[in-house]
């Protein structure tokens, strides 16, 4: 069991309110990802769930029981720290078995449980080593192993992969996803890496200034963001947005046309329109809205064009899969949005359709 419920959870330090009321239901066995820009309160929320930070407002329930003031060790949660926080003077086996030792479990039983966790993570040959004799990736595994040994009902991860190099991060990402599938335990995972968020999470909770901006399945959030913040946060390069002052511009007119194609398009007049880079196409100069290539980034599998449209400040991003090599800076092109791909937002940034 590992159902975590947050009811109006808040946190203030003195007079500054850093978490302003979070309501969230994490289902048993779910992989929930917390993302958001730096300082939005992801770690604070996670640490309140762990019990390392006191809760100043609201209720935290684990499996239906209020645990606001329960000791961290008694909540059935296990945390993997960004810095790993391995005990430097203990061997890997002692690190992993520390919680069992604190719980008064005998040496033989400890060794058995540590051995089994080590097998799952393939670190059996490291058990006698000290943390400083391990690579970053191995330390990460030990930290995860230490959490597994406790057989928690909820795993808490605070940016566990951010100290690893890019290749190792991809491996560990896959491994953690597999681990989740194997163990079937609830996991709450904090990251600021949206690739991790999109690929690992059953659901994503996007934080913004101490509140939840939106909660949902990754692709739902991507295609149906609740507001301009979520639309801008997910997706790289960022979504292209234009404001109503450009209403008489050809680009606005074109996008508005596309937006009207959406089956869900409402009647309200949008004050902002957005198109993701992969939904902006290069078309012959005559058709579409004329634009000038300012910079082209060729990534091999695709090209990212930064283009300037006369009469609109700021650059637009296009992600094109074809014709990648042919655009140099200064090339004149036409751009057009895909039908039904345009998102419309109201004056407060909420999505209309």
């Amino acid at each position, binding site marked *: 069991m590992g159902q975590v419920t947050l009811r109006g959870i808040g946190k203030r330090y003195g007079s500054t309110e850093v978490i302003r009321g979070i309501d969230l239901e994490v289902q048993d066995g779910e992989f929930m990802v917390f993302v958001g820009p730096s300082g939005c309160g992801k770690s604070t929320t996670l640490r309140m769930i762990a019990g390392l930070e006191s809760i100043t407002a609201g209720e935290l329930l684990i499996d239906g029981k209020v645990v606001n003031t329960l000791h961290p060790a008694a909540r059935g949660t296990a945390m993997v720290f960004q810095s790993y926080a391995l005990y430097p003077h203990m061997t890997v086996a002692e690190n992993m078995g520390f919680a069992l030792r*604190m719980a008064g479990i005998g040496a033989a039983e400890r060794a058995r449980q540590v051995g089994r966790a080590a097998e799952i993570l393939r670190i059996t040959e490291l058990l006698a080593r*000290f943390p400083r004799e391990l690579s970053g990736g191995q330390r990460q595994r030990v930290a995860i192993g230490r959490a597994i040994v*406790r057989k928690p009902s909820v795993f808490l991860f605070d940016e566990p992969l951010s100290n690893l190099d890019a290749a190792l991060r991809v491996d560990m990402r896959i491994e953690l996803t597999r681990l989740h599938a194997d163990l079937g335990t609830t996991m709450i995972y904090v990251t600021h890496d949206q690739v991790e968020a999109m690929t690992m999470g059953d659901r994503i909770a996007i934080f913004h200034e101490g509140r939840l901006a939106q909660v949902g399945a990754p692709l739902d959030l991507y295609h149906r963001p609740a507001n301009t913040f979520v639309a801008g946060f997910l997706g790289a390069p960022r979504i292209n947005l234009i404001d109503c002052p450009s209403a008489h511009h050809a680009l606005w007119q074109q996008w508005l046309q596309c937006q009207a194609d959406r089956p869900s398009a409402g009647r309200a007049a949008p004050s902002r329109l957005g198109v993701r880079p992969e939904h902006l196409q290069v078309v012959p100069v005559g058709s579409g809205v004329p634009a000038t290539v300012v910079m082209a980034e060729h990534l091999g599998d695709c090209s990212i064009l930064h283009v300037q449209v006369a009469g609109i400040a700021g650059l637009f991003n296009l992600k094109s899969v074809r014709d990648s090599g042919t655009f140099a800076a200064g090339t004149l092109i036409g751009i057009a949005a895909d039908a039904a791909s345009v998102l419309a937002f109201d004056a407060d940034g909420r999505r209309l359709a």
Partner: protein
Amino acid sequence: MRQTAAALLQALARRDLAAASRILTDVLPVRLSPATVPYVLISPFVLLFLVFSLFPLVFSLYLAFHVWEPTDGLAAMTYVGIDNFRFALGDDWFWKSLGNTVWMALASGVPQHLVAIPLACFLNSGLGRGRDLAVGVFFLPYITSTVAIAILFSSLFSTDYGLINLALAHLHGIPLLGTLLPAQPVDWMGRPENIKPAISLIVFWRYLGFNVVLYLAALQTIPGDLYEAARMDGAGWFRQFWFITLPSLRPMLFFAVTLSVIGGLQLFEEPFILTGGKGGSDQAGMSTAIYLYRTAFDFNDFGAASAMSWLLFFLVAGLTYATNRAFRPRAGSQ
């Protein structure tokens, strides 16, 4: 002059010895070639080291194998082989001074660490803003002159008017506790059985702050998330102290205990001043350092004193090695 010095430093920072030699040649009466510049510049240190460190060291080793009447000049030395060592090892007072030294080193040193570590932990976690002030107060005795401290404690330990006896007299009035305490004023510095405890107390008090500062510095380098991890693993405050703090302090513990061992075995100033340079009645406060000082300067036996100082050195070296064995971190963890 300032400009010359600045120009010289710049030239040296550039490792431009030719420029440095030009600058020095301008101000010195002799011409210096670039190759000799480095040697000239380090010569003050080397000279001081040779005169005040290396020479006494070698000379005392030499003396240890000779008898010497200093008033008759250097020619009055006679080689006697290991006689001085044999004499020292057969000398009752030497053994007595060693016993005194070890007694006082333990009685002042062990409590230093037993008190300094919890105190440092308390200061580290408990006090917030007041911490620097508290550390300063504890550190003050360490930077105070030994003479001033000795005078202060002479008056505190004074038999008839000392504050300590006054306090004891008041406490004696309290039921239960009072029966454990002496009814008569204690003759602290006069009676042999009281001298060592009194001196140990002073030494303990004096170096406590120094150790607190050492441990506080070590405590501040322990990452906070280790304690958070331990808390999540179910360790209460005592087990956090035992399993996280103490092992993390181990390198500093080794360093601080080593300093205590070396300092304790060379104990000199405090007992010297408090006992008037003689070691007190029945030589109860005579440390080895005092005894070898007296052997040389009161009894004029420089050879035996040198031999004793080398014996003391070997004892210090041996105990330092033992400390190292006892406190060094587990292989691989550092």
